[in-house]
């Protein structure tokens, strides 16, 4: 199935998505990768409020290149997601509904997704120049000292994504290659 969705994403919407579906996502999303996730979780450990509202939000695991003069953003494809696995369950339990990245996820993340009805979406890894054209605005939110790893708020239009892991735990990284191999027998 193909869906056109706009953030914020409610649990009803994310629970209806299935691995293998494609999504054109519009609205506001936040970039955060390794160092920003570490800081977000340290913030929670100190009992402080997060600098972004993660409820019904989508976080994009990405660290863009600097924008050139006259451009909104630089190349901004996804980074490999498993490095955020240590932090993701905490954010999911605070209401995060979509994680956008690429690559495998660990069991604890999938378990938290099942509990909270969240989805894991893949952007095409290495297609950074193309993805930049779907970003209409980009604003720094916090952690400017982290450079590319700072949290940014992106307004995106028809960002092309694929549902890799759905809220039932179905995983396209398993079923996709299996289906291809079966077709070769």
């Amino acid at each position: 199935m193909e869906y056109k969705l706009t953030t914020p994403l409610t649990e009803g919407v994310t629970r209806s998505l299935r691995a293998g579906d494609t999504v054109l996502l519009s609205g506001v999303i936040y970039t955060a990768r390794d160092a920003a996730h570490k800081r977000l979780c340290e913030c929670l450990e100190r009992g402080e409020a997060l600098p972004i509202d993660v409820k019904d939000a989508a976080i994009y695991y990405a660290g863009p290149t600097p924008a050139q003069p006259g451009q909104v953003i630089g190349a901004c494809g996804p980074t490999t997601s498993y490095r955020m696995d240590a932090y993701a369950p905490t954010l999911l339990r605070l209401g995060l509904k979509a994680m956008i990245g690429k690559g495998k996820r660990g069991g604890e993340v999938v378990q938290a997704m099942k509990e909270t009805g969240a989805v894991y979406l893949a952007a095409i890894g290495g297609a950074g120049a193309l993805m930049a054209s779907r970003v209409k605005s980009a604003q720094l939110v916090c952690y400017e000292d982290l450079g590319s790893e700072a949290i940014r708020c992106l307004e995106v239009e028809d960002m092309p994504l694929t549902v890799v892991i759905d809220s039932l735990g179905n995983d396209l990284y398993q079923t996709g290659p299996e289906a291809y191999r079966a077709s070769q027998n």
Partner: protein
Amino acid sequence: MREIAAQAITETVARLCIEANRQLSPDMEQAVRGAFEAERWPIAKTTLGTLCENLDAARATGLPICQDTGMACVFCEIGQEVHIQGDFEAAIHAGVAKGYTEGYLRKSVVKDPIRRGNTGDNTPAVIHTRLVPGDKLKITVAPKGFGSENMSRLGMLRPSDGEQGVKDFVVETVKLAGPNPCPPIVVGVGVGGTFEKAALLAKQALLRPVGSRNPDPYYAAMEEELLEKINALGIGPQGFGGKTTALGVQIETYPTHIAGMPVAVNINCHVTRHKEAVL
């Protein structure tokens, strides 16, 4: 002696950093576009089509192909008849800083592996230098993204593991990596030497034109066989399934010790970048 100014090295490295990140070498671009033509599995074909569109977008906008513009690996072959005026390694680092700053490339290097902290200009580079006959200086800049670097492996196999042991280790590495290194990938394999030599050979294998064959027919046949085995895994572009998991497998070897058989597998993504210049 032929004199080469450090400043010329800095300027060249800066230019190569920018060019390597904005446009693939013709062999690599042909490999990606050829894979798109050859792929029949629907989701794989669509995904490869997106990668081709991305190459077009990078060319049209001047943006880097991928946001991970890498850690700069710089390979130098210095002619014995060359005299460098100034600090050679400092000139390379300065070139990386200049290229990554002026080219709006991402600064992805931290100053300490555990304590972190971005260096702010993507320095230092990782420099490999060889002294060779002649009066030229050849510089190759190969920006290395870490999605694929993280999926690389090294094994100290036993001589009794033999050819099959090497093949199994390579295929297993690709299988373990799955979707993480942004397939379709290019697989660099180093066999022999010592612990560090095998790793360097694997990286150097990735500097060869993609799909080129080892001059030794024995290893050329192994490259072909491994490519077939890897593509039979069905991982496919981005791990969504399909035929195109790897665009090439390239093996480099070196003599080794009677007691050992080191094997290193260095994985590159579909944005396999290297650009060279001769001064």
